């Protein structure tokens, strides 16, 4: 009934002792997530409301069997925190931290290719499988368990659209906030592939935004590999066109990066593209009813 996180998730929080880290750790635990450890260099041996703190991820994994990590450490240290989790054998890392330098993330991205670690983020709200586990900052209250998988580049749109779904009584298997940084972990394609393979997901939603060509590539993937229905939403039809100096970006992607181009690419492969967040929920409801 979910992907990425579930009742078997044993969560470790890197940067748990900071203000944000503590707040969301306890919030995730209150939601029912099995939070087993925190890691803050130099604070090993302390605890936060009973959750033991370790100096290194390796020690924490050794002592607690943690299999998932959530990262709240500052942008200067967050990329290394991801590498540390990967080296310690953590299977899923959700990096909430915003503002990590792209070069650092490029190194992380290349390194993770040779490992068994899946990264969500950075600069993302994390992942929730309603009723099972919440790893990140998505407000669990707006979610209900169900059979719709959801992946979004934008964080606040996750909350908004999940709220619209829940208001209509449509539950979610897993909601993934993949983050919108140029170099990031799993994207639309990996998420859609997981949902396609998840027997407890009937339909998936993807919400994109202007810039890059993630949505265009997702469209190709859907055409080739996705049988389940997909509903999409793209934000930014009216967004200010970014100033642009170089041409290399456009040459690389071969895409204009506009919302219109993305919507068109998706519609061309049979994906229904909603024009407002509330229309997303309506289309999903119609599709599930049909």
């Amino acid at each position, binding site marked *: 009934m979910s992907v990425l996180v579930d009742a078997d998730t044993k969560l470790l929080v890197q940067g748990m002792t900071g203000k944000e880290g503590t707040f969301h750790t306890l919030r995730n635990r209150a939601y029912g997530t099995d939070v087993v450890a925190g890691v803050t260099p130099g604070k090993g041996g302390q605890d936060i409301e009973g959750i033991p703190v370790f100096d290194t991820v390796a020690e924490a994994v050794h002592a607690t069997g943690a299999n998932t990590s959530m990262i709240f450490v500052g942008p200067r240290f967050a990329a290394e925190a991801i590498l540390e989790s990967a080296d310690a054998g953590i299977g899923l890392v959700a990096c909430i931290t915003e503002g990590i330098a792209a070069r650092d993330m490029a190194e992380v*991205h290349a390194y993770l290719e040779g490992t068994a670690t899946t990264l969500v983020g950075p600069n993302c709200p994390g992942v929730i499988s309603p009723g099972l586990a919440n790893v990140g900052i998505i407000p669990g209250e*707006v979610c209900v368990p169900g059979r719709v998988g959801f992946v979004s580049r934008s964080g606040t*749109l996750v909350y908004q659209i999940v709220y619209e779904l829940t208001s209509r009584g449509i539950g979610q298997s897993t909601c993934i906030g993949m983050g919108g940084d140029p170099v990031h972990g799993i994207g639309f394609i990996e998420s859609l592939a997981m949902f396609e393979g998840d027997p407890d997901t009937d339909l998936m939603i993807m919400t994109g935004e202007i810039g890059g060509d993630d949505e265009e590539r997702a469209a190709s993937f859907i055409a080739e590999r996705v049988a389940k229905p997909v509903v999409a939403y793209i934000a930014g039809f009216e967004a200010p066109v970014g100033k642009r*100096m170089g*041409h290399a970006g456009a040459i690389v992607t071969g895409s204009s990066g506009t919302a219109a181009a993305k919507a068109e690419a998706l519609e061309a492969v049979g994906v229904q593209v909603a024009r407002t967040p509330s229309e997303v929920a309506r289309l999903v409801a119609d599709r599930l009813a049909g």
Partner: protein
Amino acid sequence: MDLYEHMGKDLFRAHGIPTPAGRVCGAPQEAAEAARAFGGSAVVKVQVQVGGRGKGGGVELCRSPDAAAVAAERMLRDGFMGHVVDRVLAEELLPIAQEFYTSIVLDRSTGGYLALMTAEGGVDIETLARERPETIRRVQVDPLLGLRSYHVRELTGALPVAAREGAADVVRKLFELLWERDATLVEVNPLVLLDDGRVIALDAKVTVDDNALPRHPDFAALAQEFPIDPVEKRAKDAGLQYVKLDGEVGIIGNGAGLVMSTLDVVARAGAKAANFLDIGGGASADTMATSLEVILSDPAVRCVFVNIFGGITRCDVVANGVLEALTRVDATVPIVLRLDGTNAEEGRRIIDGARHPMIVSVPTMDEAAAEAARLSREAA
């Protein structure tokens, strides 16, 4: 952050990449002097953070010091495509044998870097990429390996033999620059082979990763040089993402995706947004007051749409923030307030209880957009 050409060229020189001799000029007379120093002629170029200067009159070949002064005067007076121009770059004219193009860019589709090179300079590179992509050599560069000699060989193989060694030197140094200075783009268009056999960079486009600015204090200092609208500056200083647009509905929202979505929904309701303003995660009275001040300072605004989805942010806090802000800022136009998500009902109760004459509380995003559009039409 996009650097001015002359800043990019300073970086190029610091990394040993050859560029023409040039002088940054803030006045026409300085351009004339530069041309005299270069033997009587000069290329005069506007310094702005956008491309397309060649086609837009931003680059002028001047055959005399007087011509250089005239060109500089025009550019400094008229600006370029709506951008203020406070400096031009005057450079020596060089005898060009052939023009090429090269760039290295962070490639978000692979998470690595992509280096490009083509012998077809002097044409529109995007058109070339579309119509004859086989003329552009592309090399993926793994960030953990860096640019290797076989990458360089593959790239320069696109060029005539006479230019290969010089171009190899340039592209190696471009990658060093990109890596050491956290650039996400370095582009040279055109890279040229001179009559004397040298290969030099006639242009320099460098985009620096904003997230990496903390480790490059010199770039943060450069950022001060870019002219910025005083209203945008105020918003920026308050930690708000603000962009001025040309519509009439002021927009305030929390989260970039939601604000973008709000712009779209307002457009569908038949109105146009006057701005993009993202307050991020904060919704304090201070933030709200600054946001309203920023938006109300725009005379085009006929109503304001505050669109808050409470996730971590609680709507009751937002409601109190809005009310407190309105004790400090005079609401000169109606404010449509939509509160949804965490503690939305309590937030709406607070707003309803305050009975503020300029606040219209509407529960959903679509209805709120319709109401904002209606109010802005009424006020027209």
